[in-house]
């Protein structure tokens, strides 16, 4: 299953909120695991999305040592990123509630 346009950014932000600063590999694994491997991210999808968020100022990047002592680029949520995440989460929930209400099985036959 491919990632829907616009939702990948939300997933990345949420991942960074839950796990704290993380490298690209970590983000990809986390998203794949959370989706129970229904989503797979190749680099050509992930890294442009990360770069875009960085350009927009929602995340910040920094080179650090990884857990197994490898140099890796770590991404962390910024204050603006936190705000955007909160707003988008709210909007998504509203949309989801709305769609759920529409798609709910009919209670009684006409």
């Amino acid at each position: 299953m491919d990632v829907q346009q616009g939702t990948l950014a939300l997933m990345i932000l949420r991942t960074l909120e839950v796990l704290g600063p993380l490298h690209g590999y970590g983000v990809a694994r986390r998203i794949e695991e959370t989706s129970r491997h229904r989503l797979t991210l190749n680099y050509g999808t992930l890294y442009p999305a990360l770069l875009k968020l960085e350009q927009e100022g929602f995340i910040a990047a920094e080179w650090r040592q990884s857990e197994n002592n490898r140099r890796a680029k770590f991404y962390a949520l910024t204050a603006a990123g936190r705000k955007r995440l909160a707003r988008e989460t709210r909007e998504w929930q509203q949309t989801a509630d709305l769609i759920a209400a529409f798609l709910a099985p009919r209670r009684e036959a006409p």
Partner: protein
Amino acid sequence: MRHIRAALARLAGFFTKDRADDDLKEELQAHLDMETAEYIRRGMAPDAARRRALLASGGLTQAAEAVRDQRGLPWLESVVADIRYALRTLRRSPAFTAVVVLTLALGIGANTAIFSVVHGVLLKPLPNRDGDRLLYLRQSADGPGQANISFSVPEVHDFRTGVPSLGGIAEYSPWNLTLQGDNDAVRLDVGLVTGNYFDVMGLAPVLGRLTRPSDDGAGVPPVMVLTHDFWIKRFGGDRGIVGRQVKLDGQSVTVIGVLQPAPFFPDRIDALLNMVVSPHHVSAMMVQNRSHRMTEVVARLAPGATVAQARAEVAAIYSRLQSDYKDAYNPGSHYRIAVTPFKEALGERARLTLWLLMAAAAFVMIISAANVANLTLMRGVRREHELVVRAALGAGVARLRRLLLVENLVLTLLGAVFGVVIALVGVRLLVSLAARYSPRAGEIRLDGVVLGFTLALSVALALLLSYIASLPQEGTFASWISAGVRRMSGSLRKQRLQRGLVVAQVAVSVVLLAGAGLLTRTMIRLSEVDSGLRAEEVFAMDVPLLQLSGGPSGGTDPMAWFRHIMELDVAAKEQYERMRSEIRALPGVTEAGLGSSIPLAASTLTFDVKVEGEALAVGEAVPRADVRTASPEYFRASGIPLLQGREFTSTDRGGSGLVVIVNKTFADKFFPGEDPVGKRIAWTGPLLKLSPISGDWRTIVGVSGNTRDGGLDAEPRASVFMPFAQMLSIGGALVIRADSNAPGLVAAATRIVHRIAPAAPIVRVLTVAQIKDQSVSPRRLNAELVSSFGILALIIAAVGIAGVLAFSVSARTTEIGIRMSLGADRGQVQRMILREGGVLLALGLVLGVAGAFFATGLVRGLLYGVAPRDPTTFVGVALLMAAIGILTCWIPALRASRIDPAIAMRSA
């Protein structure tokens, strides 16, 4: 905010590409390593783990490319690459590039130059504050010289009180004054203005102050404001001029300021003064007489008022005036008033000529663009192979289109650069042309607006050129490539387009040439017009001696001013006669005469006239005639033939009987089929009371031939000559005939004039040939400009035809080879190619002649002595175009017939 930030980050990314690339490589490698390590940890063999990780990545190169697209400005990077590529391609075909750039430069240059004139003279806002709210009022009546008779002070007063939508009405009276310098005297064209003039006009001083209402009326000191041009020309831009006293017509006048550069209408002027400088202008006669019209009127719309409102209100007042003052508005003369925006009035003489030139330049642009389009199309065919290869390597249609666009932009912008250089030279020539038609010629500049026009033109051309090239639909490439096609020739459509363009070129050239032909014939006709006098070795000098300002200022006796002028006149007449007789005595001079104005110059004075024993029919316009004076020698000196009766003699003087000589137009109009000699006429009308001229009967003693006083293209007007000695020496001109080399006598004659009247300005010295040329030369310049556009169009179109046929021949080499090997001889092949070109040519000719048939009607106003659909011109132009066209078809036809069938078929 977020978008700006992202854009800035991208811009930064564009410039820090290399370092970011290293970073990215490391980041992606780290990801791959970690993933590999993870698979190994789960128990895979290192090789398999690595392969698995690579597979999951989706390709490192592709990922890097995707990130690069997000990082910098991918379009900018590829545009830079496209420009580099375009420059490389164009360098590889220098002949193509040179021809295209040159063709475009000519087209763009012509358009830029003409547009700069159109913009400066017709379109640009006036330098006046809120210049679009200024209105020009024009009063006219039927009859010669009555197209713009200006206004009297009482009329202006009525408008001032009765038209609320005009917020301010300024008076401006054209006048002449002699400025006495330290060692010379010059005649100034000035405007006498009311104190509100500059406020209404919305003009500011660059130095000192302007006149204001406190400078109005009698009993104030006379003051002068210099126009910017005159300040530079006469005083070299001296900033110390303010406060200086100058001598004008013998009076001391203070210079109070210098005006900002601004256009004047109807004529260019040197300075503006308050009315008091001319006693006549503050006299009761001027201020109270409704028929005494010598004031121009410019008004400013009141806030919120519209031109339509002003027109309606002015018309209402005017019809009331006409019924209240019958004697000032003779019903037969159809007095009328027009309210036009000042900017339109300034442009009225230039408008038709300039739009004609703009249209001619646009035609040249169309032809150049068609040529370049053809060259591009032909080159496009040769490049199809290249485009297929590029498509095979992954370039989409949009990408190829952009590549073409960039290439064409490089071409048109190069053309624009050279075009602007051409325009810079052309504009200088055009300013001198525009100066004959418009007071705004000084405002012509190659400014931002003009360059913007040039840029827009170039970009539009590039777009056009890029989109006529046919590229296949997205998605069809694959089938082309898999089919192993080397070319994509959808060339039937393309050839049809090329031929269409050639037909259009021929047609447009014919229209342009027809215009050029008509204007050239106009110019020739005009120079052939008989001016009415034997030109040979004659020159004339304008030497006004009477200084009408000065003298008793605004006295209680309105006739005091006249008496003063009459006294001056006695002295002036004596000086004129001394000048005449001394110049006559110069060796080489065969005759010298005196008159009110030089021959072939319009008289400034016209009066109503009546014939003894004849009453006007009811409703008939009061006839008018030009007032001129002549000494007995004037006609012989000028070479004006006497048709009937006698010349003036030295006995026709002050005390003797009043006599006149009338011209042929006058005789034909008032005495059709009769002998006018011995009949009597008299001056009449409301204006006469204001002049020192009597309304007594005057006996006609002779009839002179007509002269073209209003320019060679104007019909001769009725004129009445009075003896120089019997009339106030208004104007004042010497006419000198020599047995040879008249220009060589100018210096000697000038010395005599200066010696006898040191304080008199010599306004102009002209040979009769020069006077004649003044009315021909603007037409000549017109004809030359349009003709050079026409010739340019012809050349470009010829190159176009030859090019398209040559291309067709080279595309049909194999076919021609087959035909020849099957027995077609050279003549047949030649005829085949000629026929191909001939059809295009004939189509273009038909369309062109039809187009010219409509287009030339629009320039009727610029023609003289030739009909807009003059058959001679049309036939001549069609023949010329046909001849050139056939000649250019011949070259490719010859080449086709020399094709060697063996070689042609082998190389196929």
